[in-house]
C-alpha cells in the first residue's frame, strides 16, 4: 500500500509495485511530427539525412566529413536492389581518407549496436551482407560509435 507524508512544502509518496500496475491516466500532449523546433533523429521529416544527429558522432564534421557525407548520402538515396552498390567509389574515398587518420578512425571491424540502430532508423533493411559498401559503412559508423576518441558524450 502506498502512503504519503508531508515534510513542510515537500510531499513524499511511497508506492509499491502493485500501486503502479494500473496504466497511468496522466495525459501527455501528442507530439507534432512537423514541429520545426524539435530535435530530429537521423532522418529529417523531409527525408534528408540529419548530419547534426548526435548518433553520428563526429563523422560528418571530422576531416573526412565531406567524404562521409557523400558516401552516406549516396547510400541513403540509393534505389538499387542491392542498396548502395553504386556508391562503392565514394566509400573507397572515405576509407582512404580515414586511413590517413588512424587515431580518429580506428581500423577495427567492431560492430556497435548504436551503428546498427542508426542504420535501421534510416529505414534501410539491415543487411549483414558482405558487400564492401555496407560493411565499410557499418565499420565506419561503428568505428565512430566505439571510438573512444571521437565520441562526444551527452547528446
Amino acid at each position: 500500500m502506498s502512503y504519503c507524508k508531508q515534510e513542510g512544502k515537500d510531499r513524499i509518496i511511497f508506492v509499491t509495485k502493485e500501486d503502479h500496475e494500473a496504466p497511468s491516466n496522466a495525459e501527455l500532449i501528442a507530439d507534432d511530427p512537423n514541429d520545426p523546433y524539435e530535435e530530429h533523429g537521423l532522418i529529417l521529416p523531409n527525408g534528408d539525412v540529419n548530419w547534426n544527429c548526435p548518433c553520428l558522432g563526429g563523422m560528418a564534421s571530422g576531416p573526412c566529413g565531406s567524404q562521409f557525407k557523400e558516401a552516406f548520402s549516396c547510400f541513403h538515396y540509393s534505389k538499387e536492389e542491392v542498396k548502395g552498390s553504386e556508391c562503392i567509389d565514394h566509400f573507397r574515398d572515405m576509407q582512404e581518407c580515414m586511413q590517413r587518420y588512424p587515431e580518429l578512425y580506428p581500423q577495427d571491424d567492431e560492430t556497435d549496436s548504436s551503428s546498427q540502430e542508426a542504420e535501421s532508423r534510416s529505414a534501410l533493411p539491415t543487411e549483414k551482407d558482405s558487400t564492401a559498401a555496407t560493411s565499410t559503412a557499418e565499420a565506419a559508423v561503428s568505428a565512430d560509435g566505439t571510438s573512444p576518441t571521437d565520441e562526444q558524450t551527452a547528446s
Partner: protein
Amino acid sequence: MLKCRTVWRTLAPLARTSSTVCRQNARRAGLNNGRLPACVPAAHMSTAPAGGGRENQLYVLLVGATCVGGAIYAYRTVKGDSQRYQDRIDEISSRPLKTFTEEPATPTQSEPPAAPSPAEPSPPAPDAEILAPIETADLPSEPPAAEPAEARPGVVAEDEPVIEASPEEAAEPPVVEPEPSPPSEPTPAELTEPVADSESPAAESAAAAKPAEPQLEAVTESGDASPASHKVSSHTPYLLIGGGTASFAAARSIRARDPGARVLIVTDELVPPYMRPPLSKELWFSDDPSVTETLRFKQWNGKERSIYFQPPSFYINAEELGSAENGGVAVLTGKKVVHMDVRGNKIKLDDDTEISYDKCLIATGGVPRNLQVIERAGEEVMKRTTLFRKVEDFKSLDKVSRNVKSITIIGGGFLGSELACALGRRSTESDLEVIQMYPEKGNMGKVLPEYLSNWTTEKVKKEGVKIISEALVKSVVSKDDKLEIQLKDGRLVKTDHIVAAVGLEPNVDLAKSAGLEVDSDFGGFRVNAELQARSNIWVAGDAACFYDIRLGRRRVEHHDHAVVSGRLAGENMTGANKPYWHQSMFWSDLGPDVGYEAIGIVDSSLPTVGVFAKATAKDTPKAATEESGTGIRSESETEHTASSPVASSAPSPTGVQHKDEYGKGVIFYLRDKVVVGIILWNVFNRMPIARKIIKDGEEHADLNEVAKLFNIHDD
C-alpha cells in the same frame, strides 16, 4: 527679450495715458493758477490712476524700473549663453592642441629609444601623426601600436606625400615592426631631420598598414606587425571564443551543416577542448598511476577514453585554415581575446593579433569564485588553496592529495560533493583526512529537498568524508605550516589544504568592449531564445544567460547544457534560427550508491513531490551503465535522443533489497502547479519521458499518475 517687448506693449498705452494725464494735470495746474474757482473739473481718463501727479510719477517710475531691470536680465542671459558657447568651442578645439603639445615634447627629448616611454595617444593633427609612427618603432610595447592606427586617418588626409611614399616603401613594413634595437638607431637621427624626410618612413609604415587592414577605425590597434610575424589568417568565417565543451559542440555542428566550413577556436588554455565532468569523478577512480598524464579514464564497463573530445590530429593548424580544401577546425591555444570590435567584426588577442570574422560565438565559460576571506588572507593561504576547474587544477590537486594529511573542501554543491567523495575514496587507501564544510544543512542543500539532502549527506559520510554543516567561514590563517579555518560559530578546523568550490563567476570580460548586455540577476551575457546577443554574435555554455521558452530566463552551468547550447548556437550560426527547445539534463554520482539524473529547474526552494519505491541491487549507477552497455550515462542519453521516448523495460530484478527509504524514485519540482524540474533518483534511461513532461508544461492533478509513466519498479 521678447517678454520685455510684450510687457512693454501692454504697458505702453498705460504709460502713455499716465503721461498724458501728467501733462494735462500740469497744464491745468498751471492754468488754474490764473483762475479762481475751478469751473471745469479735471477730465480724468478712465484708465488714469486716480490720485494725482505724484502717484502717476511713482507709477511711471515703477514701470520704467521694471522694464530696465528686465532688459538688463535679458542682456546678461544672452551674454552668458554666448560666453558659454564660446568656452565650449574653445575647449573642443583645444583638445587636439593639448595632445599635440605633448607629442613634439617627447621626440625632441631624444631619449634613448630602448627605454619605452609611456605612449601618448596620437593626435589627429598632421605633424604629430608623422612623428607617431616613429614612436612606434621606438617603443616595442603594446600601446604604441595604437599610434599607426590613429595616425592612419590623418595620414590619409595627407594625400600626396603618403601615396608617393607607399609604392616605393611597400616592401619595407617588416623593418618598421616593433623591434627595439634596429629602428632605434635611425630614429633619433630621423627625429632631428626636417619633418618632410621623416614623413616617408613613417608614411610607408602607416600606408603599408592601411592595405593590410581595410578598416580605418581609430580605436583599433594596428595588425601590421602581427600578420607578418604570426602568419595566422587574419580572417575566419567562424570564430569561436573559448575552447570548452560549448565551443567544441558548436564547431561540430557548424561543420556538419556547412560543408567545408572553416572554424577557428581561440582559447587561453594550453590544451585542445576537453570535457570537465571526469575531472571531478572518473579520473579520480582510475587505477592507472599515470592518469594525470594520459587523462584517460576507464568507464564502469571497462571502455577507456580520453577527456579530450578529439585527439590533436583532428584539428588543423591555424595557419592552414585559410587554405584547407575542405575546411576544418583549428584551435589557437594560449591566446586570450582582449578586445572585441562589433562594428568592425573583429577581435584582438593579447599578442595584438587581429582576427576578423563573419560569425562569432562567445563561449568563455567562467572562473571559479573564491571566498573573500581567503583572498584577503594572504599569500601563504592562497598558496594552499585550489580553485578547481581546469586540467591543471586536477593535476595539482592529485599531487597535493598524495602529499598532505588533511584536505578541506569548502562548498556543498555538485563540485564540492563530488570532489569530497572522490577524495574520500582515496582517503581509505591513505591516511588522508577529508573534511567538507558548507553553510547549508546537508549536501546539495540548494538542489535536493531536505529529506533527500540529509540522506545524501549520510551517504557522503560513508565515503569517508568528515562533514561540517552549517559552517560559515569567518577567517583563514596560516600557522605553523598548517591552515586554520575559523568558523563564525567558533569552531576551529585545522587542515593542510583547502579546495574552494563555491560557485562559478561567468566570464564577461568582453562585454565592455563589445557592448554586450550582461544580466544582473543570473550573470553572464544576456541573449535571446536563439542564443543571439547581437547580429553575428552568439553566446553558449556557462556564460550564456538565455531565454528558455518553457522555463523562462536562466543560466545553466552543466555539461549537457554546454553541449546542447553549443550545438544550437552552431546551428543558428549556419542559419537555422531555432530557439532553445531541447531541454538539457545533468547528472551526479556521489559514490557507488547515490546517482541521479535531473532535468529542468531543480531548486530546493520549490515545492516538491517525490514518488519512491524500494531500491534493489540493480538500482545503482554502476548497474545502469553495465546494463545499457555504454560508458557514461550521458552516452545512453545520446542514443535515445534519436528515438521516440519509450520507457525501457527489462526483466524484473531479483537482487538484494536495500533498507533505505529513498532507494529509487522520481521527484517533481513544481512552480505554480506546473512541473518545471524532475530528478530521476537511481532511476536511469528514462530521461526522454522527463523531458516530455517538462516540454508539455501541463498542470497535472495527480503526480502519482505522472510517476507511473516512469515505471520506477522496473529496471
